[in-house]
């Protein structure tokens, strides 16, 4: 049997809801009786609300795909369609593989039951068999780090413990396709790292992951592909950095034009964000695939302040670009520049005629940044246009220093070789 290439195929999928079910009250016998008594024979005109107007999307097997978009743009509806909780109004959908959906943590948790009992129920609800849950019970308990609390009723748990338990169950389901709705950041630093590691393990095992999130840095750092859903359509699918950049620009543009942010599904045109001109689309030098790598060329999962890294970016050039400048900027997540330089300020000679495709490497012998999340931005600037690539990276450190950077330093503590008094006396007397 030939393996289908795509895990999920969607063609022109439309999903509308009857207005009645979105706003307004539930129908009751009482309301129907009153309506009948008042002589209104026709049922209230419901009208339709179209959340998704025609989604065409292929999610390749083994890829991690992020779905981004404004609040109410239909991301969760899309996930529920993929999961099968909703049925499409029209269009064609094809799912190849066993799906597990983490749309909500702790589905079916019962407060009076112990953590252990809830693992069983929740695991079965998420699609495991009883035997599978029993088999993985110890792993789940270990992962949740609840210790003795596992046999206490869930109602006595703190919200963090509750989420940890729920997440532990959710990540031990072993599906082909994992659907995740904005629940990656659970618990403290340590636990969220563990969660990320678990998700990375999923990725490594070749599972398909569909992820809805507003955390754009996660999207850039972690996903293979991003799909931007806007106005009920897929607006753009492509490399995460490009899609995220355009999405950010569209939001900024909308804010600048003071577009009123209405619920997208209720708006005539689907509440699409304004079109942006993608910078660099026609630039003579285009950058792609910026990533931070170690000296051996491997992507380093955990950067430390002392790490030596290279920002590597591929470029493709069209013809002569005499005025080309490469710029590198290290920024905080909020966009505050920490360090900026360019081939112009450092007078780095560039070849007059660039190869049609090549690679720029910005080599940092020592990163020097303290723990935190940062953005690296590389720009190729020419008169014909600019092309920009960004990537987010995380630095972690076991030393609890504060600030932004770590200068090369060492400490010396020693006895003072000369008397203190004469030095003090000398102050103010040049």
């Amino acid at each position: 049997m030939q393996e289908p290439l795509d895990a999920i195929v969607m063609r022109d999928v439309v999903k509308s809801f009857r207005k009645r079910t979105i706003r307004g009250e539930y129908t009751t016998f009482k309301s129907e009786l009153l309506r009948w008594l008042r002589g209104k024979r026709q049922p209230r005109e419901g009208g339709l609300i179209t959340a998704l107007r025609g989604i065409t999307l292929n999610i390749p097997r083994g890829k991690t795909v992020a779905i981004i978009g404004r609040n109410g743009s239909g991301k969760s509806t899309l996930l529920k369609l993929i999961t099968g909780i909703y049925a499409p109004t029209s269009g064609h959908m094809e799912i190849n593989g066993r799906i597990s959906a983490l749309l909500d943590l702790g589905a079916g948790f019962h407060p009076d039951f112990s953590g252990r009992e809830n693992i069983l129920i929740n695991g079965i609800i998420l699609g495991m068999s009883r035997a599978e849950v029993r088999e993985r019970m110890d792993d789940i308990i270990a992962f949740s780090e609840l210790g003795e609390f596992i046999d206490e009723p869930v109602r006595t748990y703190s919200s963090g413990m509750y989420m940890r338990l729920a997440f532990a169950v959710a990540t031990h389901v072993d599906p082909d396709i994992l659907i995740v709705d904005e629940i990656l950041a659970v618990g403290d630093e340590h636990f969220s790292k563990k969660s990320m590691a678990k998700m990375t393990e999923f990725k490594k095992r070749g599972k398909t992951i569909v992820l809805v999130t507003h955390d754009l840095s996660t999207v850039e750092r972690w996903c293979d592909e991003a799909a931007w859903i806007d106005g009920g359509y897929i607006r753009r699918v492509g490399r995460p950095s490009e899609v995220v950049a355009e999405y950010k620009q569209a939001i900024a543009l909308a804010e600048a034009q003071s577009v009123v942010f209405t619920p997208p599904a209720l708006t005539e045109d689907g509440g699409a964000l304004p079109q942006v001109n993608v910078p660099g689309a026609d630039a003579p030098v285009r950058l792609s695939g910026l990533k931070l790598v170690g000296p051996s060329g491997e992507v380093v999962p955990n950067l430390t302040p002392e790490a030596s890294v290279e920002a590597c970016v591929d470029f493709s050039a069209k013809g002569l670009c005499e005025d080309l400048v490469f710029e590198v900027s290290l920024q905080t997540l909020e966009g505050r520049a920490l360090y900026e330089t360019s081939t112009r300020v450092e007078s780095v000679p560039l070849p007059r005629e660039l190869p049609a495709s090549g690679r720029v490497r910005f080599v940092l012998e020592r990163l020097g940044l303290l723990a935190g999340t940062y953005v690296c931005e590389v720009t190729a600037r020419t008169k014909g246009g600019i092309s920009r690539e960004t990537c987010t990276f995380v630095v972690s450190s076991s030393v609890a220093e504060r600030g932004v950077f770590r200068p090369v330093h060492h400490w010396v503590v020693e006895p003072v070789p000369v008397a203190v008094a004469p030095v003090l006396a000398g102050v103010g007397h040049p």
Partner: protein
Amino acid sequence: MIRLVRELYQYRGLLLSLVQRELKARYRGSFLGFLWTFLNPTLNMLVYSLLFTVMMRANTPHYSYFMFVGLLPWIWFSTSLGAGASAISERRDLMTKVRFPAQVLPTTVVLTNLSNYLLSLPLMLGLGLFHGQYPTWHVIAFPVVVIIQLTFTLAMTYILAAINVTFRDLQHIVGNLLTMWFFITPVLYQASTILDERVRSVVLVANPMSSLMLSYQAIFYEHRFPDPWPLAALAAFSLALLWGASILFESRREEFAESI
């Protein structure tokens, strides 16, 4: 209907766990928790016994035992319908977040109440011994009657649960209708005590619960086999009803997640 049953079978693990949990939730912690299963029918029995043996002087020998034989399965039926009506509409958390066949939820309610019924049988048998009524070999017919009642109860519960998703006040009406139904069913009285011929035939023929109650009474109280034909007719009717319920379920299942 085949799909409905097949999915139930596929999700039997979930069904089993949910039923177990409901039962455990009831019996959890306190000894009294377990007693509630007995206490409720016992108190009911005391009230009705007082009413019928002291106040109204019904001439049914071993009245409290007689009444218990019918009351327990009736409680199974009525609590299933009462709780089953809101089984889907109240589990918004599950229906909108996880994919699984919706019929699991009402089925859980019916099976939980069935377990409660079976658990309270020793109490009934004990009361029988107290009255000198020993079970006879006729009890081999008992499982058949239970299965017919199970089919009928499931069908009714599915229909109510499906309708209640659209019409939310159904769950409140169900309680009142069940009280009415209770009194036109020969639980508290023997069918033979209805004097009016026409009323009696209406109670016995038009009310599916009657033939079930008469069967239970035949097995445990009169120590004979139940009349086969009314039971067979009810079995056929229950299957037809279940078939109708599954069609209703199929046509509405897409809407469940969206309208709750």
